């Protein structure tokens, strides 16, 4: 896994890890904006957040993870987030159709595309190895109904809100982890050159 990070050819400009870190930062901003748009649309009181546990949580790692393992860890969470976002879009389209085409809907699609790209690029960094931490359980959209409190529309809205919060959390985490990973990779490359 460490070796896969060395795929960044030194001196070829921006590396793959750097690109992934930048994409994670961009995605974090997009997710933050997406939540803002959703809160505005639904007139949610901003200081109030829905309670409850995290929708995406990782199991404890058997031993302290290396930076590469941390990237794999975050990638697993991003994949769950991707599944949650797909469920979210599917539910909204089922309920409202595809008539609505505002900024929220556009950004929602952009986040989905970029999230997929980030999952793919981090996978390329890791060589499709998840690392030593157990991946979170896969999410099914049908099961998501049980996650929400009750079956009303408001419960779906709260669940959507929590999904967006989860996206913000894990994209921020990915941004940080990829930055650390990128820094260490560069240091290792410099040591090898010396």
């Amino acid at each position: 896994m460490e070796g896969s990070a060395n795929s960044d050819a030194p001196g070829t400009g921006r590396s793959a890890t750097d690109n992934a870190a930048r994409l994670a930062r961009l995605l974090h901003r997009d997710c933050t904006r997406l939540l803002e748009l959703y809160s505005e649309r639904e007139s949610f009181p901003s200081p109030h957040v829905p309670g409850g546990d995290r929708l995406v949580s990782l199991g404890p790692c058997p031993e302290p993870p290396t930076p590469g393992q941390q990237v794999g860890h975050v990638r697993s969470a991003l994949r769950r987030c991707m599944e949650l976002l797909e469920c979210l879009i599917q539910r909204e389209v089922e309920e409202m159709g595809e008539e609505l085409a505002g900024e929220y809907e556009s950004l929602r699609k952009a986040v989905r595309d970029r999230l997929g790209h980030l999952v793919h690029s981090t996978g390329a960094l890791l060589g499709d190895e998840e690392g030593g931490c157990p991946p979170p359980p896969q999410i099914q959209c049908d099961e998501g109904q049980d996650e929400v409190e009750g079956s009303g529309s408001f419960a779906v809205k709260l669940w959507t809100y929590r999904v967006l919060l989860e996206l913000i959390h894990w994209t921020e985490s990915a941004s940080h982890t990829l930055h650390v990973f990128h820094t260490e990779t560069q240091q290792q490359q410099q040591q090898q050159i010396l």
Partner: protein
Amino acid sequence: MQGWVILALLLSLGVLHSRGQNGPSELAVPHSLTLQPDLPAQTLSLTWQSDSSLFDIEIFHTELMNVVLNETVAVTAGPVTGQRGWTWRSPSPLECTSHSVQIRARNQQSVSQWSPLQTIPGSDIPEKSESYMYPQDKVVPVGSNMTFCCIVKEKYNFKEIMYKGQTMNATRLSRRAYAITVTNQPASDNTGTNVVCCSPMFTLTGAVVFVGYPPGDEGLVCETRDLASAECSWKKGRDTHLRRKINRTNYTLNGRDCLEANEGKTWMCNWKVWEENWTLVARNPLGTVRLTDSAQLADRVHLLAPANVTAVEVEAWNATLKWSWPVAAYKKLEMICQLKLIGHELSSTRNYSGTGLSSVMLEDLWPDVDYTVTVRCGSKHAFWKSGDESAPYSIHTKMDRPDALDVWLWMDSSNTGRVFWKPLSERESHGALVGYKVSQSSAEEDMWTPVSLPPERLNYPIILNNSSDITVAVAAQNPAGLSQPSAVTTPAYRADSQLSVSELLGTHGTFELSWQPNANASRGYVVEWVPTGCRGLCPVNWEKVPESDRSFTVKPDSLEGGVRYTVSVYVLSAGAASLLQRWQGYSQEMIPAQSVVELSVNQTGSDVLLSWKASAMEHQRGFIRGYTIYLANAARLDLVANISDPEVRSYRVKGLPLSSYKFIVKAYTSAGEDMGLTVAIKMEIETAEMLFVGILVPLAAMFCCLILISICCYKKREWVKKAFYPEIPGPKVPGDWSSPQGPLDVKPSPHSLVHIVESPEWDFSKKGLVPVPEEEEEFENDNIEVDTDSDEPALLRYYNHVVGDGSHSNHVSDSSGSSTASGGSTQTEVTYTGIQSPSSSQGVCDGGGYRPQMQSAADPAEPQGEFEADFQDDSLNTGYKPQCSWQLDSPEAENLSGSLGSPTSVTSSQFLLPESSEEKPQSSNTWFHSFLSGKS
């Protein structure tokens, strides 16, 4: 759960206790009370058994025992079961909290015991510890009122309930349940209106309410496009604001779902078979709309657009168009088709009809024109509406030979002229012109000589070599061929001077002409208008007028204001055109562009003659109606004359005083005056008058004055004599002084001045007036003054102004010692220099100079010289003594010896007269004195 059971037992005990207090009753207690809640409808149905028909019903919020209903109702028993039933609609959702019900029978004032409490649990019972809000996802019409309740999770605190982001007033229903009531709800946004229940830290729960309208669709219309199936459409009504799929309006047509309409994409529903009656049902959670339509298939034919429109044959003046139909059944349909032709400035709509029409011939097209054609058809019988329009199809018609030209021959002299022709319009040229062919022949030479001209040429010069007329033929040429030649024969040239040209007045920028009919006008008339005086390539306009017409109006677009036109009417016959009538006029008169020219002014005595010439015709810009003459006076113009005859070009302004004048002459037309031309003149006296007035009159006046003064002086001569020339006693001197005295002409030597010198060692023989050579002046002391007024400083002439008895002596003491006096006639100047008064200086000439007659001899203040002392002895009895030093002191004494010893007085009038008289002219003293004294 345990707590709820305990609460129910306590309530039951309480009821039993109250029964015991009421005592025995005659009415039976209702029994078998059961409660049946309908949660979505928020209703609670009560059923019980009783023989009574009037009942008191009480409903409580169980936990706080708040009475929410206390009502007496009359209820009849069911015919089959004998049960009595009553339904209560709760203002709040029944899940909000537990409700308890009791009932008793009533008969007027007597009542039975209350029945045992029956309770339906709410969602706030301890067994349900989570947060809840009710109602969920309710769909209500705009303007309705609703109550929402929030059940707070166990161990959480309630903070607020927000409706659409706004905090509402909440009412507590139970330990965990709170409710708000919203009135007159507005329409929801896309995803519904959120009602959120919050704890101080979290969003606990919430609900969504969908507020909207029932369907408002209208106007169902069904038609057929293929003569078999049906296509029904309608107009969507107002927005229902219900956008969730499950809340959208659902459409069915004759009981069949309209899938596309239900997707919200169209408001149309198709069915493969035509049915004469159609019913559309539009339904949403808030209401239902039912629309119907009924018609025969033949009455609702809406044809599709023709396909594959093509032109199979295109000529210059017509074209054949074909198309096909996408539906085979159309071939048997009697239809009417509309073809829309759009060309350059040529648009038209043409209708054709036939069975299964698929081909038409378009006639009356124009050559060499691009047309765009569209076709649409409809059923001819029971026309419902025009079908869809075909795609535009373009055709271009072929070219054809041009139309014949409109030709005219304009003669500008007896043997020169120019043939003109009008350009052909697009409709007339039938294709782009490539040029013109001009041919001419004379009667003598029966031979045409053709000339080719480019398409931009519109004229050709003609020269008549001999007196015979020539005929010119012009033809236009395009790729399709030559037009029919247009021939014209040279008309006879008639100069304006040979005719009586009438004045023509324009009307609103046009010329309205009329003429007497002419029998020879077999081919009508030609009206020609040309700018007057134009030579060579002139803008010649003409218009041919039918024989029957007697009038013509020249349109303003070919006329220019302020330009004089010569308008001629020619008679057209088999031969050359002949002139019938001619005018000259302006379509619109303007003020002259240039004023008069050659304006001159001449003075004749006190009159002024103004003359001018008219400006050139091209500058007149209108018929000159006259002239106005102004006199420019400061900032205004004074009208002097208005000459209404334009032929008069001079004017005499009479009786002007001597001064400078500025005249402005303006020409005017019916449009007004021009700016005018200015001429200025300064009036002067003529020579004879100037001599008379300037010289003779002042001279005469002067002489008259002199004569008057002389007469006056003569009359008053005694007084004048006393006033100005008092008698001076004659000197008494020894010897013979009685001889007549003559003037003493003392002529000092040239370049000498009389200089009085004071010197201690002055010698008597040196005292007196001393002629000083001029060169010595500048070396003399300050006491010596020079007669600066004298033109002849070297010449000292002394005249005894008053001879004989006219001597003066009393004013000697007043004379200034430094005074300089000039006296003389036009021939003489007398200058005394350095003669000082005794009081102001040591008497330079005290002894030898002039001495006043009555001077005191013993004045101690005055220095006395030897000469003075000696002289006093001689003058004790005499008073006045003549000066005695001339002979002694003068360096030229010898030359003047002839005059020495003469008794002539040497008194000077300057010293004898008062000081004020010093400035009086002395020139005529001699003759004046004689005059006063009566001597000649």
